[in-house]
């Protein structure tokens, strides 16, 4: 969680220096969903995330060096600099290309897990998406297919109450999006997405169901991004005290740290994690900055196979 947050803080600074291009969508405030889920997964389990997916991919094991180099468009990036912030991929860690079309990954995860089922592998596939994605047709088509094909897809909805800049009350009649999965007879649970343990429990259960051949699961994680939809978002669509409440009292990292302290982890151990993360990120940023840009001929590579 700490790695994800600090990684994005570095990205924010690099964006302001003009080194990160395009749009930057940060998951600050939502890190527990990623950490809780990834701890339940193996390397060969599949992940498809979305444009707010840095936390998910880092938790699933993508190299911070390769990820940071990708942010800077360098040839040493996880996608050789061709994908940028929104398409991180590391097949060796089960991370399929992240998707920047809202709802675009739904059918893909169903196909990917159908392949696993056909090959009689016990791997599962996790799809992360936001509340807004559940209003796309692909979400409904894919949940229907997952249900009839009984594939080990785990649909994790990060309901952060806003689809981009519009509150959920204006976009959907459901308060709980888990209801939508029930329409397809997919078992669905609602969890506190800022509680990393609760998140982990829910995903562990879903993973067991998937590995047993019991089919898909839907998890609605109630959470909140305490930063804008993207860099430069004025956030005029939500009250400041609401953001402040989530940032202070419900911050997943603070909540986790407090819990660990009550369980006998020492403050020194916690600050050691922070020091480690700082060292990892110092190294990643230096690596990314020192790496070369791709050669121009590289633009013709990876369009078609050879």
């Amino acid at each position, binding site marked *: 969680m700490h790695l994800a947050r600090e990684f994005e803080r570095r990205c924010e600074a690099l964006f302001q220096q003009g080194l990160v291009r395009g749009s930057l969508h940060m998951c600050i405030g939502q890190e527990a969903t990623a950490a809780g889920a990834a701890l339940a997964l193996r390397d060969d389990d*599949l992940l498809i995330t979305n444009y707010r997916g840095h936390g998910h991919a880092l938790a699933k094991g993508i190299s911070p060096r390769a990820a940071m180099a990708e942010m800077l468009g360098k040839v040493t*990036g*996880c*996608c*050789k*600099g*061709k*994908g940028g912030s929104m*398409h991180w*991929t*590391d*097949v060796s860690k089960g991370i*399929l*290309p992240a*998707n920047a*079309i809202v709802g*675009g990954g*739904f*059918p*893909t*995860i*169903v*196909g*990917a*897990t*159908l*392949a*696993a089922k*056909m*090959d009689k592998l016990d791997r599962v596939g996790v799809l992360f998406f936001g509340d807004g994605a559940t209003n796309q*047709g*692909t979400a409904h*088509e*894919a949940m*229907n*297919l997952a249900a*009839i094909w009984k594939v080990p897809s785990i649909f994790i909805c990060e309901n952060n109450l806003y689809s981009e800049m519009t509150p959920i009350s204006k976009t959907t009649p459901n308060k709980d999006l888990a209801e939508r999965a029930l329409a397809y007879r997919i078992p669905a649970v609602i969890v506190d997405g800022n509680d990393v343990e609760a998140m982990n429990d829910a995903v562990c259960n879903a993973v067991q169901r998937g590995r047993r051949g019991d089919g898909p699961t839907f998890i609605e994680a109630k959470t909140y991004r305490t930063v804008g939809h993207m860099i430069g978002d004025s956030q005029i669509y939500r009250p400041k005290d609401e953001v402040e409440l989530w940032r202070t009292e419900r911050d997943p990292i603070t909540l986790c740290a407090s819990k660990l302290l009550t369980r006998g982890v020492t403050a020194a151990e916690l600050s050691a994690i922070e020091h480690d993360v700082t060292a990892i990120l110092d190294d990643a940023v230096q690596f990314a900055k020192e790496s070369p840009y791709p050669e121009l001929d590289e633009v013709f*590579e*990876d*369009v*078609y*196979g*050879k």
Partner: protein
Amino acid sequence: MIRELTYSQALREALTEEMERDANIILMGEDIGVYGGVFKVTDGLMAKFGEQRVIETPISESGFVGAAVGLAMCGKRPMAELMFMDFAWVAADQIFNQATKMRQMSGGQVSVPMVIRTQQGGGRGNAAQHSQCLEAHFAHIPGIKIALPATPHDAKGLLKQAFREQDPVVVIEHKLLYNTKGDVPENLAPIPFGVAEIKRSGSDVTIISYSRTLLHALEAADSLAKSGISAEVIDLRTIMPLDMETVVKSVRKTNRAVVAHEAHRNAGFGAELAARITEQCFGWLDAPVERVAALDVPIAYSQPLEAHTLPSPEKIIAAAKKVMYKN
């Protein structure tokens, strides 16, 4: 010895042989199982290969085309059948934003070796939402290959090749070709993409075409011969990759070119061909390149209106005479 098959039979033979060769090939689509597909191309394949490999999907084009993308990224070779080309729009995100981009976005870490089989075209009174020819839309997006067989022979050979490619391929059939017959030898090898075929040699004008319009072009060439005009007819067979070498060589010989297809004229693939011919043969051309294509209106239901909209041998003859400056 000539072995005559229909276009449908040739396609079915290709599917059968490929599925026997590669256990990773899976067919998905609407009504393709027990019913055998609305054009009966997959007739009998579910009985032969089972429900695991011939999957009857819901009417859910984004869903199953997208599922094919996921299957392809995970080691399978899925074929998604779009019952009508017009439904490609329904699955457009999954085709154009997903399937074609995955290899590049991931820096080459994944590939999407999937086949989309579909049919297009008018001439049967299917009206505006079931008659469009949309190959130009696919040609505009890098990352996919496009085959448009005109004969049973090429239908089999190109479909077999489609299952050996490493990238998404759309095999575009024509609804009025399914019952046409032609020679399809036993043990036909896959036909490599990007190799056009000169279907008829000639010296006065080159007619470049593909899919069903190729048959119109051949008919036009017969008729032109009677008027003393010798037409060379080229079947492109695939438009991505595109065999410009064969086209350029022919046009530099005949000095005149007509491009003919059933898709709309405006921004159709013929416009790309005309531009490339002009770029590569300008000094050889004795007349501007002529385009024969559908009128730029939605395809009407009424028979006379539809016939008026679509290309015909007569329209190709008129275009050839125009570039010959003859009436």
